[in-house]
């Protein structure tokens, strides 16, 4: 039984079958990648996992509870944090505030009217945020505006924000899309460090095979809305069906 269980999910857009009979099981403390060529249904699947889309049929269970029909903040409170394709951070706030907000959200829930306390007096949260920033080597940038960071630092900050919540599942949506090779390698290193340092469950949606093979424990290959195979990276590499899906029939 995995922490995330997708069962018989179907999603149609008009006449287009975006997902048909998708089954997926993400095991705890593993890195599970979902790959596939353009139009395979990766984004649709992700949107079903985070409550943005509701499948026509099928179920998505996280930690024993259904995520269907829940709002993004409720799904986060269940223990799923999400990293976006382009880093989504609070650009007008300082790096330190960016990290404090998710810690507050984790401690206080989706809303709390703490309008008369001072942020500076929340010792626990300040200390925790300092530890999180130290973890990603960004402590010296704590007072900078997040919008002024380089793209790599923004990605690092977003990752730190997600990790500060100690999520049960970290969802990554094409974390290296549009990146130069060097940046891609940095991101892979960062993710590998995170994986090595703590027990974490990650689910990566990715187009780039290179990223996936250097990170994942298990890989699901999606093509035309259906999972073709699910296996370890080594087995996937040589699998004829995968080559077919990526390179066409001739290969």
């Amino acid at each position, binding site marked *: 039984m995995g922490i995330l269980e997708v069962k018989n999910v179907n999603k149609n857009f008009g006449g287009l079958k975006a997902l048909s009979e998708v089954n997926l099981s993400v095991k705890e403390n593993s890195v599970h990648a979902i790959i596939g060529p353009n139009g395979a249904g990766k984004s649709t699947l992700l949107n079903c996992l*985070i409550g943005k889309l509701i499948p026509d049929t099928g179920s998505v269970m996280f930690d024993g509870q259904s995520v269907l029909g829940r*709002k*993004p*903040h409720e799904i*986060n*409170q269940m223990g799923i*944090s*999400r990293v*976006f394709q382009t880093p*989504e*951070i*609070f*650009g*007008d*706030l300082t790096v330190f*505030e960016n990290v*404090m*907000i*998710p810690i*507050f*959200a*984790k401690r*206080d*829930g*989706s*809303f*709390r*009217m*703490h*309008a*008369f*306390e*001072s*942020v*500076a*007096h*929340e010792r626990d949260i300040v200390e925790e945020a300092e530890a999180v920033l130290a973890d990603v080597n960004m402590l010296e940038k704590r007072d900078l505006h997040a919008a002024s960071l380089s793209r790599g630092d923004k990605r690092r900050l977003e990752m730190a*924000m997600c990790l500060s*919540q100690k999520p049960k599942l970290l969802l990554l949506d094409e974390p290296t899309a549009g990146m130069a090779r060097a940046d891609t390698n940095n991101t892979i290193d960062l993710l590998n460090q995170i994986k090595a340092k703590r027990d974490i469950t990650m689910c990566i949606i990715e187009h780039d095979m290179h990223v996936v093979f250097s990170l994942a424990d298990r890989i699901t290959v999606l093509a035309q809305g259906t999972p073709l195979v699910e296996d370890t990276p080594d087995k996937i590499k040589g699998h004829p069906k995968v080559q077919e899906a990526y390179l066409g029939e001739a290969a």
Partner: protein
Amino acid sequence: MLGLNTKDTWLLVIVALMTLFAPFLLNPFPANSSLAQFNAGYPDLMQRFVIFGIFAIGFNILFGLTGYLSFGHAAFLGVGSYAAVWMFKLLGYNVVPAIILSVIVGAVFALLIGFISLRRSGIYFSILTLAFAQMSFALAYSVLTPITNGETGLQVYTSDPQYFQRSGAPDIPHFFGLEMRATETLRMGGWSFDINAGYYLCAAVLLVAFYMAIRLFRSPFGMMLRAVKSNQQRLNYTGLNARPYTLAAFVISGMYAGLAGGLMASMDPLAGAERMQWTASGEVVLMTILGGAGTLIGPVLGAGFIKYFENIFSKINDGVLHGWFGFLPDGIENVLVTVVHPFVGKGWHLTLGLLFMLVVIFLPGGLVEGGQRIGKYVFRRRGRKAGGAEAEAARKQPAE
């Protein structure tokens, strides 16, 4: 002090001193001098400075922090005024119950309007709030005449019950016997200063309101509101629900507006529908942006600035202009008066509009940004001089 850091404590102290000494600071010219018309230290105007300051502080909590631009905040000011006058009519002329009820009524109205308007953001939110405010105005003006007394405006009549009005108590708004209108005029040489009870009550309320705003700005709640403005998508995926945060901010700013309305009625026990009109809503937007949206002191400065213009600049008529330019030859005098005429007197809106444009274009952070730039410039120059002196000292040292 009071749970504030050093910088904020200083800000509060400065504002406290300024409000305390406002009757003196605003009357810098002797009463009989030709510049006396620039004195703003008379009770009516000082009360307005402070009341609109409170209104703008509240508006800034919504607009400055969350970025939701409400075009209907005058509605809360209006209902606050009506609530206060009703308290005078029913209970008696003590201002305390009137002010308390005006805050409560402001909150209830804001909850209602905010709950519906906050389903949309951006321009749609602004239009919804504007629509609500105009509806309130229209209702107050005609349909709800039994409650609002229509175009005449709500006022206290001798036939009103005033159940708790004691026989000896003043027949105008008072604070436990202290009449709001009570004014002590101090004369020092050519100068005269008005010490007014109503003004000091408003000033005390302003200080409390300002202190609460500082606490809110520095609180986790305030940080979340800024996060709403910065990136709502990230906020949602961080596990926070933006809706209750924005609604709470809306209600708090509605309470500030209701408070301002209640104080307005306490200074002059009248409430008219025109207080809810969209021009009044627009005015508080101007005040906040002119002073500096999202800053603590900005809205207060903006409110003072606009009210000063409205009351002082508008009094400069052709007669005054001829007086100023009288020393020039007739031809030039007439030309100058003709050129300046559209910008003063009834044309003060034109000057204000131009200034507003200049501020928005060159100082997007408002008057506060202007102040900071000047401060930085002065500081840098002084810093350079000090640096030079230190460098000289350093050069001398090895020789010794």
